[in-house]
């Protein structure tokens, strides 16, 4: 019984070995690379909204006292607030980039 099982096992292994062949690349890798999705550059959206935002702020600022009041208020702010703002800026930008990258996939 054991001898028969061993013989069956051996035939089985030989059968698979006989049909196991390596497949040559033959341009498969370069074909696949050509089909890789390219990262979309959507940075123009950020620039568009920034420009619209600045233009709107300047327009409102020129025709009202809002801009002058804002600048005056900025100069009256305690220095520590300014420091916290500057320190938090990279963190906020970093988080924005992180979420932006996640949305790509």
């Amino acid at each position, binding site marked *: 019984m054991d001898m028969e099982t061993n013989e069956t096992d051996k*035939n089985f292994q030989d059968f698979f070995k006989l*049909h196991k062949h390596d497949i040559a690349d033959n341009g498969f890798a370069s074909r696949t*690379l050509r089909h890789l999705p390219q990262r979309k550059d959507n940075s123009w959206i950020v620039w568009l909204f920034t420009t619209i935002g600045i233009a709107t702020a300047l327009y409102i600022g020129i025709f009202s006292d809002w801009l002058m009041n804002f600048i005056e208020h900025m100069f009256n702010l305690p220095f520590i607030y300014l420091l916290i703002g500057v320190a938090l800026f990279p963190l906020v930008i970093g988080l924005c980039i992180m979420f932006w990258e996640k949305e790509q996939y």
Partner: protein
Amino acid sequence: MNNAEDLRWIAQVILSRDERAFEKLIRKYQSPIRRFFLNLTMGDVFLSDDLAQETFIKAFLYLPTFKALSNFSTWLFRIAYNVYYDAVRARKDFYDLDEKEINQLYQVNNSYSTYKEDFYKALINLNEMEKIAVLLYYMEDKTQREIATIMKCPIGSVKNYIRKGKEKIANFLKENGYGNE
């Protein structure tokens, strides 16, 4: 298989989206992945290459989620398994055929498949799960634990698939006089 080398290439792809590094990964693993699909599709070269390409594209997209808990090859075969499973399901819906009919649909229409006709005839008696488990175990030298990870099923089920598949192939070999010469 050099796992450290794989991890270096994977890091290059994730950090700098280095396509050259990804090309090295493709060149290293294209043969086992394409062979796996070729055997599953009963020698359909075009379909198996399409499925292999889809596997590598998905691997490229999901590479940042690779946690290195298993080796890269096992992770890649897991994607290949999912790609194949989706393809079979889509074709089944489309043709409204059962599994054996799908196998016959793929079978023996090119030079490669006539060369391996006996091999495919042996596989055609196996159901999809048995075929995948047997191919991964005997052809791609995966361990039962790795196959359980790839097929996302308990190791007991993997053992069962392999045992049943092996019995069916052994019967085929006996009936067709293998090992008698």
